[in-house]
């Protein structure tokens, strides 16, 4: 095989600093880097001296793709940003477009979106913790958590039709309403979740090996975290109680009773524990929302964004033209810009939308938490052992789709 395979990146350093150090390449096809991150590390024995983090191996051209589709058509692309908690992306994007259009969603949609966002957050944290524990060797905990996540996926598939990426949000509401028996099954899953989480707590929390591998590893101070743009569970693990659901409430969060768990040292153990506590808080919120869910329509009755009901489309010419225009041209969003941020599972997920007044976006930019976190990842990796890179990376929860868009 004579063909020279080109190197897609230029490393920041190629010569070792000293005679006894070595430069190794980790990734991007590596089990523990969650698929698409390359870390070029200089090692002194087992100790990492400096790292050069390369992302971008999953850059799929989301922003360029969006400029070619209508505001509605790009909802499936938005799903695949943080694919572990796809519903949160859907609703954040729809919220941004709705605010720009001046559309107010119905009460039922408001509570239902909050419930589903928390349900998605549960699935995301389950995935993150399951992957981290598996990489540390705790296969049993992985199987327990992935089993619950599978029940959640099947359950959401009953509602949306898909297991992982749903395209469920619509501008002005949701795709469809809850089927019969959905809430009953939800309560069953939450009960089973509590039983399994209790087992995982018992296996892991006070486990000598787990504590030795994660305590005081990957430490981040609050000042560093804010300087490098960290938000979400990582910032909260350093001790700063910053959560967009409490600070600038949106959807139905202002009416819910929940705590914001914080850590003490900002190390891997704290990040693990903050996520475990956040899952419990999410379950608490879901239970409150089940009781608060009002009856009513889920799509706002606004012809600028909601498709007219089918009998009208086939019956009268105005609705037919309305339907046609919404599908072919897309909903017309007034010219301007908006930045709306929701609390994603990883932190502040922001959508910066620019509209030129037509049914196709002029620019859609995602402020993705994982991308910003990769910028500061070297603060948590330098100075620790090579084997510590695994739990640290797992606890950052870098999601490729969100990082590289």
């Amino acid at each position: 095989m004579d063909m020279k395979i080109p190197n897609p990146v230029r490393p920041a350093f190629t010569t070792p600093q000293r005679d006894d150090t070595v430069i190794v390449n980790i990734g991007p096809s590596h089990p523990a880097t969650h698929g698409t991150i390359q870390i070029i590390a200089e090692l002194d024995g087992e100790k990492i001296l400096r790292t050069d983090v390369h992302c971008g191996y999953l850059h799929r051209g989301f922003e360029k793709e969006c400029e070619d589709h209508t505001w509605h058509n790009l909802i499936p692309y938005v799903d695949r940003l943080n694919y572990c908690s796809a519903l949160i992306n859907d609703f954040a994007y729809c919220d941004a477009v709705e605010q720009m259009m001046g559309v107010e969603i119905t009460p039922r949609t408001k509570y239902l979106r909050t419930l589903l966002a928390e349900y998605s957050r549960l699935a995301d944290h389950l995935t993150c913790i399951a992957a981290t524990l598996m990489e540390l060797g705790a296969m049993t905990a992985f199987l327990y958590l992935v089993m619950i996540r599978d029940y959640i996926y099947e359950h959401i598939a009953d509602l949306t039709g898909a297991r992982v990426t749903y395209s469920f949000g619509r501008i002005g509401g949701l795709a469809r309403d809850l089927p019969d028996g959905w809430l009953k099954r939800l309560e069953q899953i939450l009960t089973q979740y509590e039983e399994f989480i209790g087992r995982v707590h018992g296996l892991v929390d006070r486990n000598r090996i787990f504590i030795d591998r994660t305590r005081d590893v990957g430490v981040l101070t609050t000042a560093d975290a804010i300087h490098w743009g960290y938000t979400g569970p990582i910032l909260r693990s350093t001790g700063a109680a910053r959560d967009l659901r409490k600070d600038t409430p949106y959807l139905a969060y202002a009416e819910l009773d929940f705590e914001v768990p914080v850590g003490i040292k900002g190390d891997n153990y704290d990040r693990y524990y903050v996520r475990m506590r956040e899952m419990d808080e999410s379950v608490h919120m879901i239970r409150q929302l089940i009781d608060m869910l009002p009856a009513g329509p889920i799509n706002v009755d606004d012809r600028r964004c909601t498709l007219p009901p089918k009998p009208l489309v086939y019956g009268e010419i105005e609705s037919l033209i309305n339907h046609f225009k919404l599908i072919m041209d897309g909903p017309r969003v007034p010219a301007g810009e908006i930045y709306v941020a929701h609390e994603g599972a990883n932190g502040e997920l922001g959508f910066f939308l620019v509209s030129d007044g037509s049914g196709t976006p002029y620019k859609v930019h995602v402020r993705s938490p994982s991308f910003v976190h990769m910028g500061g990842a070297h603060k948590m990796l330098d100075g620790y052992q090579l084997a510590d890179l695994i739990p640290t990376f797992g606890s950052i929860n870098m999601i490729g789709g969100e990082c590289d868009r």
Partner: protein
Amino acid sequence: MATPIFESIQSQLGSLATASSVSHGTLVVEIAPAALSGLVQTLKSACKFDMLLDVTAIDWPGRQPRFDVVWHFYSTTHRVRVRVKARVPESDPVVDSLTQHYGSAAFQERECHEMYGIRFNGNADLRPLLLYEGFVGYPLRKDYPKLGEQPLVPYREGFDIADRAGV
């Protein structure tokens, strides 16, 4: 809402901003590119905007100057956001880098550079981040074709790069 805070920020920024308004709950401040450093220093120390959220650009091909460079800042104490915009021309798309004030600027500026071609003075590391070595052009500019692929690995027999043209 957050108006008293915005008014106090506007008065503290004073003449550094050429225009400012409140849009959808965010204070939008327009400045000349040269005023960026002074404005950011005021924002960070006096107005307590300790987090740089986002750096991006918007391409208006029919307009002179062509690009709008957009920064978003967040204050964890006041819990509000500020959007700062500066217009730069295509012939000299240079602005100051914010890496000495905010660490999160490093990756964000690299991405903005490779996507739009905006150069950041003071950021020593503007290597491609999401794109790869050898990629020619700035994809998010409006004149870059969506299907303009530049494969690193030559295709196998039977696959032609021109196949995609009709898609």
